[in-house]
């Protein structure tokens, strides 16, 4: 003990200061590496967001094409050429494939990306290195996640009419809207490797003064 107190070489000072230095350096470098790792996650998240945004944009563009151009009143007595209407440019099927997008190919998830579509939103979910990423974008236009024949079948079940010009719906607008909204709550899982079809479809409604229609976009594979 006497030797210890008489020792003036300050080795304890030296050891403590160096230990503190090492500790501080470890914390500093850990913080830096953590920040770099966070940046990588942030970049992946932004890539996923941008992919979801790109799909939403493609769907909204289909909806915006010649908006309500054909939504005009016509009398049931008038002849209506359905084929010319449904085959016009605005109703042409548009294909979208995630696999063809550079943003998709740059993602670190490979085939683990889950794509879900409902009438309300598109949702992209994936996991990488134990971390989960997700991006959700809402659609601006009315969307239904199934094809034309399924829509006709559902409309027939709900209202007893197909919603075509030849067989327009006869119920109240508000009721039809609520039914379509309910149909839109269904979720469809999409395969990123397969083409997705986007098609604008008009649903015809018979009113007192004629027949009017509103558009919705069908998304299916």
């Amino acid at each position, binding site marked *: 003990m006497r030797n210890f107190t008489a020792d003036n070489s*300050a080795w304890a*000072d*030296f050891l403590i*200061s*160096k230990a*503190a*230095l090492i500790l*501080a*350096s470890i*914390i*500093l470098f850990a*913080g*830096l590496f953590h*920040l770099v790792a966070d940046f990588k996650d942030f970049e992946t998240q932004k890539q996923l967001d941008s992919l979801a*945004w790109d799909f939403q*944009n493609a769907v*909204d*563009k289909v*909806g*915006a094409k*010649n*908006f*309500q*151009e054909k*939504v*005009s009143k016509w009398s049931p007595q008038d002849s209506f050429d359905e084929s010319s209407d449904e085959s016009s440019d605005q109703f042409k099927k548009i294909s979208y494939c995630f696999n063809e997008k550079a943003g998709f190919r740059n993602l670190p998830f490979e085939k683990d990306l889950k794509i879900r579509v409902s*009438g*309300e*939103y598109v949702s992209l979910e994936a996991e990488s290195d134990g971390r989960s990423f997700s991006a959700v974008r*809402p*659609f*601006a*236009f*009315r*969307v239904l996640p199934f094809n034309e024949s399924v829509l006709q079948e559902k409309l027939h079940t709900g209202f007893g009419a197909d919603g075509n010009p030849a067989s327009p719906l006869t119920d109240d*607008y*508000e009721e039809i*809207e609520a039914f379509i*909204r309910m149909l*839109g709550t269904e979720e469809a899982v999409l395969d990123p490797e397969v083409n997705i079809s986007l098609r604008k479809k008009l649903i015809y409604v018979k009113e007192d003064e004629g027949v*009017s229609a*509103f*558009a*919705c976009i069908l998304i299916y594979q």
Partner: protein
Amino acid sequence: MPVSSFISSFVGNRISSILEDANKFVMTTFKLMLKDEQGVLEPQSDILSTALAVIGFVVFAALLSQAYLGYEDRSFALENYESASLLADTLAAAPALRQESPNMLSADSLDKLSGPEGVKEREKLFAAFSGNYLFLIEIRTEEELCQWRIEPVNVEPDSFAEGREKVAASVPVVIELNPVESVPGTLTVVLYKTAWK
């Protein structure tokens, strides 16, 4: 001498004397530090430099998080401006806002749509849009002599309250006031932030 000038000269003298004292103190301390040859800080110079590096890192991280928070605050406008612009473009071409002329909005149609009797028409106009985007349409003539506001039906009364976060996009339009008078104007779509966005 007026009281106000007496007070201002007194306060001025007091401040200048405090500043002089502080200056003297700093200079004395600085001189003492320069003359001090005990080397108290010398063995711990590495700790001091590490502390400086840590402080620098903390400041850098704080600045970074501040920038991210700033981006988050404005993300609603950044992410939704494109949608508002698309909606404005789309609605400017909607036949529901026109009558005879295909290139002009009709004041009669706008009167009908924005009035209480236009509920059915508004329902039809908004039927093609999903309920995800809460928006209203404002159309005004260039000199703001006439303006119309078209809101969707069945929305909560406070949905378009003033304080809510929103983003707007406008497109130029021509408004047909009557068969002989048309004026330039703008159609604006104002997109409001909903609770879940």
